[in-house]
């Protein structure tokens, strides 16, 4: 699987109620892990929604690799999304939740079932197939969602605050898992996070969003060294 670059070209979006207006260009290198950071309400989740196809821009173009995905339905985009919460259907067991990432025929096949078990093993949950989401911890549920993303085998992975509900130990584990899976699959990965240490630990780049605009899109190291971006320093609390 070759991971594609992501391009936002003159994208303009506004909610019906006018709560937020976004206008931006951005380029995400292929195979990178990018932290999307910014204050609450700045537009991080909207950027994800535009990329995943949950919202449609009023203007502009979104490309993944060579494909213009701007008007494609969410399922048609080469993207997997792991939300902060509610990734799993509570009444289905873990295997059935992961199998939703496969085609119906594939899910019933022996190979499909092996793929599910393999994905679970890769996220450290081997043998969890018959467990119900309610019996899992927050971290384990996130891992199952990651396993489903692996089964879907889409080249772009969006993680919407995947560490938000996790304690420090689980957070560390989850970061290691993401870094490990990224190393194995070289997915182009975007992670919404509020924690600088998440970005420092695993991200190549930081995309800083403020008031609907992308104020910076730089390698992690140089981003943390920037002193000229007042909003960014305020956000980090280092002013």
């Amino acid at each position, binding site marked *: 699987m070759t991971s594609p670059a992501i391009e936002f070209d003159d994208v303009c979006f506004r909610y019906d109620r006018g709560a937020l207006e976004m206008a931006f260009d951005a380029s995400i290198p292929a195979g990178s892990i990018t932290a999307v950071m910014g204050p609450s309400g700045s537009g991080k989740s909207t950027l994800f929604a535009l990329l*995943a*196809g949950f919202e449609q821009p009023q203007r502009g173009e979104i490309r993944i690799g060579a494909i213009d995905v701007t008007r494609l*339905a*969410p*399922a048609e985009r080469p993207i997997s*999304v792991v939300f902060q*919460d509610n990734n799993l259907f*509570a*009444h289905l067991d873990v295997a059935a939740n992961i199998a*939703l990432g496969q085609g119906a025929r594939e899910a019933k096949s022996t190979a499909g079932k092996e793929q599910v078990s393999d994905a679970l093993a890769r996220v450290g949950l081997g043998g969890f197939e018959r467990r119900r989401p309610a019996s899992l911890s927050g971290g384990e549920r996130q891992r199952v969602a990651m396993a489903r993303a692996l089964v879907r085998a889409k080249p772009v992975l969006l993680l919407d605050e995947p560490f938000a509900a996790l304690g420090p130990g689980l957070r560390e584990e989850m970061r290691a898992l993401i870094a490990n899976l990224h190393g194995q699959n070289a997915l182009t990965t975007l992670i919404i996070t509020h924690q600088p240490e998440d970005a420092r630990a695993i991200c190549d780049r930081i995309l800083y969003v403020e008031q609907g605009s992308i104020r910076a899109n730089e390698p992690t190291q140089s981003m943390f060294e920037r002193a000229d971006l007042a909003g960014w320093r305020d956000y980090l609390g280092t002013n």
Partner: protein
Amino acid sequence: MRVYRADPLDIAFGIAALAIILGIVGFAVAGLLVAAGADASRSTASDAYTVRVVRFTLWQAGLSTLLSLAFALPLARALARRPHFAGRAWILRLFAVPLGLPAIVAALGIIAIWGRQGVVNDAYRWLGAEQPISVYGLPGILIAHVFFNMPLATRLLLAALERVPAEYWRNAAQLGLSAGTVFRLIEWPAMARVIPGIAGLVFMLCATSFTLVLLLGGGPAATTIEVAIYQALRFDFDPPRAVTLALIQIALTGALLGVLALLPRPEEGRGEGALPRRFDARSPGALAVDVLVIGLGLVFVAAPLAATLISGLAADLIALLREALVQRALVTSLLIAGAAACLSVVMAGMIARARHAAGGARRYRFAASGLRTSLAGAGLLILLVPPVVLGAGWFLVLRDHVDPFAAAPAIVVVVNALMALPFALRVLEPAYAGHMMRTERLSLSLGLSRMRRLLRVDLPALAPTVGAAFAFSMALSLGDLGAIALFGSQDLVTLPYLLLQRMGSYRTDDAAGLALILGFLCLLFMIAGTRYGGGSARER
């Protein structure tokens, strides 16, 4: 956790309210039991008529529940799949109207649409059919019950669907799930969780339905227990049969309440924030199905309401309002409803305060907990002993001592107050608990006297809620035909009772005009209650 001492005066008022309610209901039930003992030889629960009535009660309630849910399911699904179209909010508001409409008013609208001279039968005849659909008997009862309960079930199912986390819809869209899979994995599990509770609620409402069955029942073959009690007392003067039926009704409602207590209670609220976007059902076929389903549901609910409005406006309202008997009925209705609402709100206030005080008790916790439970149960006692049964009990208690009709106004007020009590409590109690959470510490720290706190802190803060509870109680009492059907006479005429008389004497224009006036008044109070109370207590 609260650490203050429970106010003994609040507890005392609560115990007084409990004693009054238990006294009112207890006397009625005791009257029934005594009468049953005295007349045991003349009527049994196993005679053919009683068995038939009980069987029909359960049969029509079961069918009504099934039909209401069968229509509500696709309608709720269609509305949930289309969260953002012009007029959706108005459709949902329209679906709340039957909840605030007196059953007798709705029955007139249903007859106008489904009756022999109604729109449906006109269309039926136009198509060449000779035998029109009869609105009297089981079909009419079912249509009326579906009219009342399908919108309620739709709103509750819709709320369940709208509580599904937005991520589920996004996940479904991202995974490219088909409409069938979305239904199987998301929609059905969300609805299935609340269906037992909704079915139980609708079954309970239909099993204790009185007015609709009285108006549309059409003879002994289509009579429910409550209507049979009424007929036994008012027409056949057969108290033993009324007693037997009343005791069966209490046993039935007791069993139903027991089952309902075990089922998850459906809630209307859907949480905060905007409605989640749906990404499924984008195909023209799905859109056509949803438009058809919503359109049919809309017409089914709106047509009887429109018919009531149109025929009411066609009546000579001015002449009607000039009629002395109408004026007397209007004033009597307002006085009875006002008194019942006052009584209901005062009792609800006493219960809410006592339950709150008992909840914070540091000593005698077992007794306090028992009092809280008893007060909660007392507030709902009318569900166990419905108004017609309560009225029948009091009728039998009084008949040996005084003329029951002489005490009729007081009995109607008390029965209506008890009938409205569960709704008044549902409005007042959470608001009172929230208010106390916000102000109790401050009031105590300021050392405010009980009266000063009541006048300066509690009443001003709770005035809108008290007003809402009063408005709900007023609307319910205004439209009620339960107790007044038993105790109404030439000396005691309320608007619903007068409407029933005019319908009985085929003065349809007058009936239509009265229905419009009554419906307008009830909806006015219901809207006022909803506006200040933040939702319909009746649904809750």
